[in-house]
């Protein structure tokens, strides 16, 4: 990886020119349960370019976490099979050997999770756990590993790292533990960092610190970021591109600014409209009626149509993730005729979503 230019917000630079770092093609994941085998996700297609920051957005059960885990082949025990390809720098992670996978996992692709306490081992110091990643993946001596660990702890904004390096996880606050996890994930200089709800367990002021750190690291080290979250605000603050998932499928893929202002899929629009930020105070919140279809009972055709205000004859047909122009894709055959409201509609309510300053 050379020193490429940092990905710009809203710019397509990262997307267009460079060869994608990650290409997910037709990814489907199946699980076995006592009632049979269920399809958790299907036909997931997306690319992530080097240094790009992509948000994967959706509600619980939409398949966003399992998509992240499948890239590192960290699938749970009831995993029953996988279709499609996960091409990382030319290697298909879906079919490569366990040995090849181990060489990539933690070194070239790293992952951080929502709850740092369950990812850290309570009986080892944080310095030991960070250095472990380094020593597994490279032939490095104790002193050198410790020096690099110290440098990385400083890099992720831990005050007095010389003292903290010998602390145990329980001696650190939640925000510091997440910084330690970020340090451990970055120590080998990965090309892709997968972050699954990295700030959901943190307070809002600490969340702001961690998001700033992730953005800063992605820009300065040209690390691509795949940020999995349910929070559209977090995506807007951190990412350049947003992929929306619903009921195990990708339903929209667009630059963040475009998706927020002019979403093409009725579900994306509904999500944006249902956020309290953007509604006039004390008014009624628009909501999406109904609930996500159960994995055991997926409808044919468009999976959102039972809840969609724009459902029409034709929606029962199989929907493809089609090119919508300008690098955007959407899984809705009616996208061109629907003029859907986004985060700024109606315009005057958007003003109340901002922090007014004296």
């Amino acid at each position: 990886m050379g020193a490429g230019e940092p990905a710009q917000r809203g710019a397509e630079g990262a997307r267009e020119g460079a060869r994608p770092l990650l290409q997910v093609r037709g990814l489907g994941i199946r699980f076995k349960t006592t009632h049979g085998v269920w399809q958790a996700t299907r036909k997931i297609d997306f690319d992530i370019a080097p240094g790009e920051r992509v948000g994967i957005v959706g509600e619980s059960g939409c398949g966003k976490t399992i998509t992240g885990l499948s890239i590192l082949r960290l699938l749970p025990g009831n995993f029953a099979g996988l279709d499609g390809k996960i091409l990382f720098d030319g290697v298909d992670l879906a079919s490569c050997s366990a040995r090849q996978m181990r060489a990539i996992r933690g070194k070239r692709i790293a992952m951080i999770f929502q709850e740092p306490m369950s990812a850290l081992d309570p009986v080892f110091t944080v310095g030991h756990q960070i250095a472990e990643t380094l020593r597994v993946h490279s032939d490095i001596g104790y002193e050198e590993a410790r020096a690099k660990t110290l440098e990385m702890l400083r890099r992720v904004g831990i005050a007095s790292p010389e003292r903290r390096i010998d602390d145990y996880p329980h001696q650190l606050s939640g925000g510091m533990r997440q910084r330690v996890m970020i340090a451990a994930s970055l120590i080998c200089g990965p090309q892709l960092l997968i972050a699954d709800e990295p700030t959901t367990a943190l307070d809002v002021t600490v969340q702001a610190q961690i998001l700033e750190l992730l953005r800063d690291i992605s820009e300065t080290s040209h690390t691509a970021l795949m940020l999995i979250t349910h929070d559209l605000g977090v995506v807007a603050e951190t990412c350049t591109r947003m992929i929306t998932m619903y009921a195990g499928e990708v339903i929209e893929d667009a630059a963040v600014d475009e998706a927020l202002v002019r979403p093409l899929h009725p579900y994306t629009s509904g999500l944006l409209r249902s956020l309290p930020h953007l509604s006039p105070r004390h008014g009624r919140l628009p909501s999406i009626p109904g609930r996500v279809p159960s994995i055991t009972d997926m409808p044919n055709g468009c999976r959102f149509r039972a809840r969609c205000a724009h459902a029409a004859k034709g929606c029962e047909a199989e929907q493809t993730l089609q090119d919508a122009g300008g690098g955007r894709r959407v899984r809705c055959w009616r996208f061109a005729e629907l003029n859907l409201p986004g985060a700024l509609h109606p315009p005057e309510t958007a003003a109340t979503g901002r922090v007014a300053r004296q």
Partner: protein
Amino acid sequence: MTAASAEPRREPIVSVHDLQVRFQTTDRRATVKAVDGVNFDVRRGETFGIIGESGSGKTTIGRALVFLQQPSGGAILHDGIDPRALSRGAFQSHRRDYQIIFQDPNAALNPRMTILASVLEPLELARIGTKAERERQAREALERVGLPQEFGERYPHQLSGGQKQRVVIARALTLRPKLIVCDEVVAALDMSIRGDVLNLFADLQRDLGLTYVFITHDLAVVSHISERVAVMYLGQFVELGPTEAVAERPLHPYTIALLSAEPRPLPSAMRTDARIVLQGEVPSPIDPPSGCRFRTRCPHAQPLCAQQAPDWRELKPDHWVACHFADRPNFSPS
């Protein structure tokens, strides 16, 4: 609160005077001041929001308001009377008027009881009416929260998270309370149904004249639903005022930082870049900083802030703040 303003205010349904709640640490060596000297009124029919980060004491206040937690000091008056002065029997029937709903409906519902049985339970404990009357009331409550009749015979695992939270709301309504403390009631719900549940709270307030105390860490939720909002930090209120004023013209540096830290789903062109990222984290409530508790993280801290705790003062009509320098012009950071 004693200051008068031009506008006549609604009578308080709850008055809190110098509330203190202290806990012993498990080794009994130290005391955690979870709530340390909080004063406020909740006015009849309003929604009073309390926001704060984890460990600020907001949940402890909520529990104290309904006497699930005994105050260590100060007073909480319900409708002008101190419920602790009531006899045991009178207290038990009094507390039916003051209900609380929690974040996780799974923890609040017994998985082995049908929905109807769960909703019936408070009525049975209160021995209200005949069996048929109680069942009618329970079914009415379920209908009011928008659940179809047949849900009464189902079990919690057959319902979605939003539906379960509706059941918990229905159960709180059966005893026709005057006030409901809502502690993070939408935090566990997916965003597409969060709006539905917030709308339901608004409808019930309009139809039944309920008063809410809405406790949350989510600024968007609190500013959407509340008329007045209090901001809590390390066991104390730092600011209290009408929601519009607090959200748009905040007086306390912590409120300003909290508002600017909230990630907003807006395109980059509409975003204010003047974000204040607070350094560090909340200090321990066992040994809070001297003087102003926020001073260790405050971008404007002065020597005075360490020496003297700021007064709780009404700087603008109905808008209270605890900061030595909140009345300075251009206080808000550029």
